[in-house]
Every structure is written in structure tokens, then in C-alpha cells.
């Protein structure tokens, strides 16, 4: 059983990296998390139930590792906690060219500011494309909790997007 699992794990890597990027907010930290998760998974292959989804199992391992790391590092200030100053970023002639990058940056900042539990739900459903039921199983929370966390996270991100769209025009006219 172990060899097919390893091969599947290799093919899952791009998606695991994406999930880790979302969780940590950094490509480097994300890759460290993926590496730790792969090592943990391979050392506990006996705990993987054949016939269940390997991706879900990996997402759960990653989320748990990340929570552990965050607890250990709690003294450190969070990178995502700086205030979002989109107006300042959006001023200038290059604003149109910058627009998509700005949107991306704004979204990433908004996601990083979310509470840990909301962020995981958001990433699993909106980025990884899991159903609510699959996300509930990964995070071991009820379906209703998935829905409420997802709604709050989406509204928080949506508000940032909304204000970001308004910011350039109000600034350039002024």
C-alpha cells in the first residue's frame, strides 16, 4: 500500500503547497510546512485508512502542524497584523496596472488577518474546492460550523475587496 500512497503524495504536492501558502501567508514557510507534513505522513502511514482521501488526510496533518507551530511561536508578532493601507498603495498613474496585484495583495492580507479556524475553512472550500462535508471532516467540526466560519471569512475578505475598489477613485480625484 505504501508505494501508491507515496506516488499519490507526489502528485498532490502542488495543491498541498497552495494550501500551505494560504495558511502561512508565505511561500517559504508554506514549503517548510509541506515538508514537515510529508515527513509526518510517511512516518504514520499505518494510520492512513486505505480507501479514504489522501488529500483530506494531508490537509488535516498540515492544519494540525500549523496550529502547533503557531502556539509555539505565539510570542512573535503576526506578520499579517499590520494595518491595510490600500489608499496609499493605490495612488499614482500606475494604479491600473497595479490593480490586479493590489487585489491579490489585499486579499492575502485579509486572509492572513482572519482567525485561524476561519482561514482553514476558507482555503479548503474556496481554494482547494472541497465540499462543505469534506471540509468538515478534515477539520473535525460540524457542517454548520463550516458554513458560519466560511460566511464570516468570505464577508471579511469581501469587505476588503469592496473598499479596495472604491479607494483609487476617491484618492485620485482628491
Amino acid at each position, binding site marked *: 500500500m505504501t508505494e501508491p500512497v507515496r506516488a499519490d*503524495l507526489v502528485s498532490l504536492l502542488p495543491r498541498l503547497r497552495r494550501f500551505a501558502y494560504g495558511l502561512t501567508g508565505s*511561500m517559504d514557510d508554506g514549503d517548510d510546512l*509541506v515538508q514537515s507534513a*510529508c515527513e509526518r505522513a510517511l512516518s504514520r502511514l499505518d494510520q492512513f485508512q486505505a480507501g479514504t482521501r489522501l488529500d483530506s488526510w494531508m490537509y488535516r496533518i498540515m492544519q494540525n502542524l500549523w496550529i502547533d507551530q503557531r502556539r509555539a511561536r505565539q510570542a512573535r508578532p503576526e506578520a499579517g497584523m499590520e494595518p491595510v493601507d490600500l489608499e496609499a498603495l493605490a495612488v499614482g498613474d500606475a494604479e491600473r496596472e497595479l490593480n490586479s496585484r493590489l487585489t491579490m495583495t489585499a486579499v492575502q492580507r485579509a486572509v492572513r488577518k482572519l482567525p485561524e479556524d476561519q482561514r482553514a475553512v*476558507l482555503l479548503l472550500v*474556496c481554494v482547494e474546492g472541497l465540499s462543505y462535508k469534506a471540509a468538515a471532516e478534515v477539520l473535525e467540526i460540524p457542517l*454548520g460550523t463550516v458554513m458560519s466560519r*466560511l*460566511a464570516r471569512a468570505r464577508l471579511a475578505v469581501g469587505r476588503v*475587496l469592496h473598499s479596495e475598489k472604491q479607494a483609487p477613485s476617491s484618492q485620485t480625484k482628491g
Partner: protein
Amino acid sequence: MTKQPWVESMLVAYVDDQLEPAQRAAVEEIILEDPEARAIVAVLRGSAAAVKTAYDQPLREPVPPRLLAAAGGGESASAGTVVPLPARKRWLERPWKMALAASMAALAVGFGIGYWQARPSGEFRLAGGPADETESGQYEAALYQALEDGSPGTQVAYVDTAQGRRGAVIIVGTVSAGVSSNCLEFRREWRDAGNKVVSRGLACRADSGEWSVLSMPPKPAS
């Protein structure tokens, strides 16, 4: 936008099409009557797409070798390195007489193919040349030639004179969307005592032109 939490939950499930028909009808009614609910729906729709786009960078980049190693192997993977492979050029530049005089093992090293060899026990080990009697210079030369061509379906046959075996390397294709386009999946088929044996592998090329090969243990073809 400060609806009751349960309303927001229903609205997000509506946007994601995760409601039962009866619930869906009820939510549609709320949306028709309530402009605030309509505004929330618009925000929920926009945010999902934006979040997805914001994190697609890892899908457009090759997977770093250290992660391929971590996913593929046990002990060697924890070292976090993939065997560095000598570039092909180095061998080609050698005078052909030297290459001819070289032993089979040296030839294999000269071709610059190192690989991860998976043991049937599930443990992996790193090898810089033939890992055991099943890895011949002829196989490695065929593998290298097939990888250099790289197009799906490419098939390079080889005859392992030492083992008296015939086999072939077949390029299956580039690895599923998202992994570096520099990675190819290949299949190796050979006959062992009349039985057809198949093994799968993954080869990734670094910018320097070197190939790293991860091969899975062989299985008898059914």
C-alpha cells in the same frame, strides 16, 4: 452587513450551491425581499473567486526538489536533498574512445543518471549509479534517451546483456497539472523469466539540465 449568523450561513451555502432544494427556495425568497441579503450574496460571490486567484502561485511553479524528496522517501528524504546529477554535456565531451573503454558502471555514471530507488519494503534509498543488479547501463541509457525526447508515448527499447533481459522505457507524459512542466512520468517494462514486469517512475529536470529520477518498485504486470 450584520445579519444573523444563521442567515449568513444559509447565504454562503446558497452561493456555493450546497443547499437542498427546499432550503434553496427559502433562501431565494429572502434574497428577493431583502436588499441587504442581496448585497451579502454579491460580496460572498466576489470573494470566493478572488481568494482562489490570490493563492495560485504554487500551481504555476515547479515543486522544489526538497519537497519531491520529502514526499517520495523515508530516510534519505529527511536529509532534504536529491542526488546531484552530472550534466549530460560532460559525458558527451569526452573523447569517444574513453567512453568506449569505460566500464558499464562508469558509463552509467557518465550518463548522469542517479535515482531514488524504492525498495519493495517501502524504504527508499539514494543512488548515484546502478542501485543493484536490476539497474543496468543499458536501461539507464534508454531512460535518458526517452527523457530527452520527452514526448508522451516515446518508447526506447533496451537489451540488458548482463542480465539477458529485454525491456523498454515509455514516456507516459508530463506530470498532472501543477507540477513543474520539467517533470515526466515514465513506465519501464521488461521481461523477467518470461513474466512481464512493470515499474513506474518520475523524472524531473533541473534548470542546469540534470535529471533526478524517482522510481517505484517493480510489480508483475497482471
